[in-house]
């Protein structure tokens, strides 16, 4: 298979073959991070910009490490230090950056569609590093990579996603990706946090945590998106935690070999308790490790694409 797309704006628009192609490519990159010399010359001379309008530690660092391990040069721009605070529009920022000839721009933005707008303006590649409540494609890809690694296959898996679904780009991208496989997807949270029409995506809405995780192979918990007003969707964090916080005793309802995932950052004691986050079922740090490999694969494919 050959990669032809200029941008990675979302899981939407990717075929099952393209998803698997990224995951397979990531396999071959994972070992690089485990060597003493963690660097290959593949993207030498390429420039990667991370343009982050929202705070991020793991995603930005992960992209930067991925780019550096492929020998690309990286420049990080955070909104607080950029012209954004001086009133420059995204369009002008994009044109300005484009004039400096980057090869890839990774954008994170609080507003859905910002990466799509950027991709229409610039000729270089654009990667969506998370746009509002819309998509976070590399997160979903690393989640699938981790599920496949731990379970051997994606087909036949029962996946429960717990939390603030309505505001979650991670949930959306995971749903869009997992729908390509023979999976059972359950979204669980209070009714205010489950968007209408979820069933249309082949997702089962569920309001009971215990029912949602029954016989689950994968449990993915999400934090409440305070920056998107998530707190107003529940009476209190305390009440939410009592009803939807994942505790160790819950895990007995799931499959014996269930894995627990979290895209981070975690709010310990709210959506996930310490004994789960740090327990034997947790693969949260594997997700972080795999994230680097998946992002290396994405950068490699976009920059090595066939014209």
């Amino acid at each position: 298979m050959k990669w032809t797309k200029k941008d990675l704006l979302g899981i939407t628009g990717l075929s099952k073959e393209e998803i698997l192609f990224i995951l397979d490519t990531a396999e071959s990159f994972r070992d690089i991070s485990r060597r003493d010399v963690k660097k290959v010359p593949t993207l030498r001379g390429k420039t990667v910009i991370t343009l982050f309008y929202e705070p991020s530690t793991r995603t930005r660092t992960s992209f930067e490490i991925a780019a550096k391990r492929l020998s690309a040069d990286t420049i990080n721009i955070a909104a607080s230090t950029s012209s954004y605070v001086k009133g420059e529009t995204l369009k002008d920022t994009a044109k300005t950056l484009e004039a400096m000839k980057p090869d890839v721009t990774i954008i994170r933005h609080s507003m859905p569609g910002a990466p799509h707008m950027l991709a229409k303006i610039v000729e270089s590649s654009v990667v969506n590093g998370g746009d509002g409540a819309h998509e976070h494609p590399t997160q979903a890809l690393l989640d699938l990579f981790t599920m496949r690694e731990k379970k051997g296959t994606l087909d036949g898996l029962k996946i429960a996603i717990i939390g603030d679904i309505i505001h979650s780009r991670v949930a959306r991208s995971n749903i869009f990706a997992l729908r390509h496989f023979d999976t059972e997807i359950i979204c669980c949270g209070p009714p205010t946090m489950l968007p209408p029409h979820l069933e249309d995506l082949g997702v089962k809405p569920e309001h009971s945590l215990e029912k949602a995780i029954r016989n689950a192979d994968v449990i993915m918990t999400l934090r409440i998106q305070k920056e998107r007003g998530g707190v107003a969707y529940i009476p209190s964090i305390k009440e939410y935690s009592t009803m939807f916080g994942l505790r160790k005793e819950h895990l007995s309802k799931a499959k014996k070999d269930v894995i627990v995932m979290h895209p981070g950052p975690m709010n310990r004691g709210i959506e996930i308790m310490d004994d789960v986050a740090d327990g034997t079922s947790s693969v949260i740090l594997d997700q972080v490790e795999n994230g680097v490999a998946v992002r290396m694969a994405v950068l490699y494919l976009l920059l090595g694409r066939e014209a």
Partner: protein
Amino acid sequence: MSILIKNGRVIDPKSGLDGILDVFIEGSLIKKIDKTLSGEGKDVEVIDAAGHIVAPGLIDVHAHLREPGYEWKETIRTGTMAAVKGGFTSIACMANTNPVNDSKSVTDYIITKARSEGACRVFPCGAITKNLKGEELAEIGEMVEAGIRAISDDGKSVKNSGILRKALEYAKLFNIPVISHCEDEDLSKGYVHEGRASLLSGLDAVPGIAEEIIVRRDITLAAYVDSPIHLTHISTAGSVDAIRQAKKDYRKITCDTCPHYFSITDEATLGFDTNTKVNPPLRSRDDMEAIIEGLRNNTIDIIATDHAPHEGTSKDVEFDIAAFGISGLETALALSLALVHQGVLTLHELFRKLTINPAKLLGLPYGEIKAGKTADLIVFNPEIEWTVDKNSFFSKGKNTPFHGRELRGKNLITIVDGKIAYKDPSFKG
């Protein structure tokens, strides 16, 4: 100066007139309509309309001309130029200018400006409340004296039911309609319709019921005080249903919808094209079909444009912060003619909703082709195919989701007050 329009198919939806006829215009009036009129020997401009349709000029009950205050978006000049290009001879302009049209002096300004620079007739719509704040009634009587033909706080609903009740009662003094923008603002913190598309895009969304709740409230209030109410830019199946039911018991309800609500759906927002951002938002396919059915069964009386022009930079930003609105005057006729092409409406039925019904709402003596009436009319061809090019718009607002779309039906000539206000460059004859 006289004009003789020969050999066209003349239609007048009010009288039912429909035939190959000649129309003779002298001064500002239609003098004669008959077979084979002769214009020889006089100072007569003869227009050969063979193969085309001669109809009353279109009347828009809902446009934004942006002047005074937002002249970089549109002016009375450019907005009325767009109107005559689109086939409109009269338009009502909404009050959300800067300053707001909530006083006689602003109304005077708009009317004076329109008389000197306008390419078509302009009928200002006054604000219901001072500065559109929803708190105190504007000086409606003084504005009526200055020339407003309706009142509306368009852009938002009058949230306070007590104030709206008073407005409905007070408007009876002047026999002008209250035009209601229906939106429950507490339910409408969003940019697109809440449905399958918003689930996919993650954009903050507005449910259809945000409109329907206010539709029902406003009808209830109007019926209680026995005042006419006009519900503007209706967009949902639930609204159509509520209005159809309510009209059975209370006759003083009218409503309009806009071409975009019967032409495209919320699926158009999936590419994050900010030209699809409009308030009320583009709705679901079920809603669109209900709007079309509402037009067919006459629940919806009028087609209005909600022409909402914006400069490029208001739209050339992220979807969340882009301005709401579609520049609609130059595509409305062709989009509406699709209803005829699809067999939803006859030509006469469509033109009722574009001419005589809006005239009736605003109390205007226009919208007819009849000897002795003012010569506001158009020559158009429903079959001509053309491609929408926003760059050729007369409007300053290039914000159209229909750019590049093939449409069928084109206005060729617009005559306002007996004078040619627009002639399409392609027109020969």
